[in-house]
């Protein structure tokens, strides 16, 4: 299934549209999605530090989705690099 991922902070620079789409096998977990995204960035966005994905969180607009969670279908996700508000 296609999963749309909104990009924030330093990861925004991976795609000028501010989001990207990954093809994710049904039943994948967030941990699987993390690997897919890191591989995608290494291939398509070498200007971005793909290692950042390892310390980034995935989230819906309502909550952080930890590694063991299944990737929800039909929901736009966001990838959140380490935060620096205030």
């Amino acid at each position, binding site marked *: 299934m296609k999963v749309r991922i909104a990009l*924030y*902070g330093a990861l925004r620079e991976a795609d000028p549209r501010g989001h990207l789409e990954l093809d994710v096998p049904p039943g994948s977990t967030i941990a699987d999605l993390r690997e897919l995204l890191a591989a995608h960035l290494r291939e398509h966005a070498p200007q971005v530090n793909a290692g950042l994905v390892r310390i980034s*969180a995935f989230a819906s*607009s309502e909550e952080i989705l930890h590694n063991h969670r299944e990737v929800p279908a039909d929901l736009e996700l966001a990838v959140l690099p380490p935060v*620096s*508000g205030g």
Partner: protein
Amino acid sequence: MESAMDDLHVAVVERADAALDVAAALDFVSDPRFGGISVFVGKVRDFNLGRQVVGISYDLFVPLALRTFRNIGERARAEIGAPMKLYIAHAKGDLGLGDLAVVVAAGTPHRAEAFRACRLAIEAVKHEAPIWKQEHYVDGDSAWSEGCSLCEQPSEGAQDHSGHDGHGHAH
């Protein structure tokens, strides 16, 4: 709870639309029950990690940021255990030197709870809210700040972060 909602104001303000408003924060947390108000104002400063800063751009994941602010408010309320009004607002977009980045205000019956609630809220905003800071330097270069990973569950004691940062960036 409706009253709880009435006692909590959270906002993300696009800089192009308006500046953050400290007077509005004080007004919101003012109440005949409250003898103590504590306010934290975070501003864009001119120097960080040895580099001359001329501005900051803030990127936010707005819906989750607002939800995080509300969660922080509820946590502060449970922690303080006293009547409280809390105001949390963060700027978004391109800010210049001296611009207000964040305003947190807490009103409570006495000063001790007000200081505690304000401190707890600002530390949690900095460490848990989906907000990213890009600094712009005098030489034309820009850099996204290193930050706190959200991969781990939030720590129980926000105070642990308040003095010394274990993750190598001074904020």
